[in-house]
């Protein structure tokens, strides 16, 4: 199939960028979206132009490095990561707009690549358990009810890709925060630091310049791991308990 790509080009973080149009021909529907961009980049390199910078690593949908705004939807038209999106989701003649995640907390490094280290700093602020949990103990040494274990596991599937921020009209990272808070809040090991964790992580989130949640729900709709909205309720509940505890 033949497509018209409109891609955000920006040589570095301080430059003003622009949308540039590239026609691309003979795209196979079995290519992944990133392979299609690889083909474009080979052509650009051969023509002596700068290739389009974008992030990826595993290309298996598990690392969270990739992430593009495709036709106005984070990770494109399927509920998956950009690397797991295939060209069969498009049809011949389509115009495809490709932009980086737009958030003040994720500054553009170059073209489509953004700096997501704000998420690392939010995790550093409390998204862990301080005690050494030692070597693998017997599975039932610390019993965890099935519902809690499952909810913790579902929340733990968040790959920190940042699509939730990219899609949110408020530029909030509450789904990411909620996933990390819920993951540890559902487990016995997470209890000791439960209150300080939520206070410190939310504080860091706000410092990074992310917006406040108004429960619109665009984040869950684009999340490749389908993290549900109710993790944000757990975040809010822990916040309420932690604030009340300080009184």
């Amino acid at each position, binding site marked *: 199939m033949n497509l018209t790509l*409109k891609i*955000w080009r920006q040589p570095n973080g301080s430059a003003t960028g622009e*949308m540039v149009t590239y026609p691309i021909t003979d795209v196979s529907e079995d290519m992944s979206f990133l392979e299609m961009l690889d083909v474009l980049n080979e052509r650009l390199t051969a023509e002596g132009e700068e290739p389009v910078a974008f992030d990826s690593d595993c290309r298996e949908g598990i690392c969270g490095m990739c992430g593009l*705004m495709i*036709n*106005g*939807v984070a990770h494109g038209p399927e509920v998956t990561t950009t690397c797991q999106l295939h060209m069969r989701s498009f049809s011949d003649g389509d115009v495809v*707009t490709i*932009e980086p995640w*737009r*958030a*003040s*907390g994720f500054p553009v490094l170059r073209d489509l690549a953004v700096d997501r280290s704000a998420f690392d700093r939010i995790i550093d602020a409390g998204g862990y358990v301080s005690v050494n949990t030692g070597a693998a103990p017997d599975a039932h040494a610390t019993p965890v009810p099935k519902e809690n274990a499952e*909810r913790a596991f579902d929340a733990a599937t968040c790959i920190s890709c940042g699509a939730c921020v990219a*899609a949110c*009209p*408020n*530029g*909030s990272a509450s789904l990411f925060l909620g996933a990390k808070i819920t993951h540890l809040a559902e487990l016995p090991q997470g209890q000791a630091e439960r209150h300080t964790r939520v206070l410190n992580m939310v504080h860091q989130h706000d410092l990074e*310049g*992310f*917006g*406040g949640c*108004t*429960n*619109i*729900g*665009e984040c*869950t*709709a*684009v999340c490749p791991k389908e993290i*549900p*909205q*109710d993790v*944000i*309720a*757990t*975040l*809010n*509940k*822990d*916040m*309420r308990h932690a604030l009340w505890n300080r009184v």
Partner: protein
Amino acid sequence: MAVTGLVFIGYVLLHMYGNLWAFSGQEAFDDYAHHLRELLTPMLPYGGLLWILRVVLLASLVGHAAAAFALWSRAAKARDRRYAVKKVVTATLSSRTMRWGGVALLAFVIFHILHLTTHTINPGGDPESPYLRLVGSFQVWWVAVIYLLAMLALGMHIRHGAFSMLQTLGLTDNRRRYRVAHAVGLVLAIVVAGGFALVPLGVLLGIVTT
């Protein structure tokens, strides 16, 4: 935001219930308006409870608007460059119109107070009886239209607002309760907006008359 919103939801429910006395005729409605001012007397002076309500509502309004504008400005700063193309995947119309819808409601509340509390705007004449004033006003078509449009805006605001309040208070932390919260928002919106709309509709249809 959630706490002041809860104050408003409680208030509009009571207010809507009170308005329905219009269907019982002039005497019942005027008695009701009079009783509002006598409630808790002699513990409070005449109209005392009403004044306490007004202070609480005004404080809630200030708090609600301040929080709304703070969120609005944080959102603007959080995305300093906008997308060339941005699609809505699932967000309801209600959730996307909270800010401008809230501004519209604020304008309506000001109009409404000038109309029925301070008697500054008198489209249907200026009779002493609250009932005659109400019915006379809604017999002017554009007054009824303004109130009906405002109730549409109110219904949309409550539809997302009530759900959002439950989520912000952290009461929806499993999938079932999350769905229940959405249903609560929808039911409250229909009851409040629908209930308020009955009175102007009743006047327009000639069921409520002077």
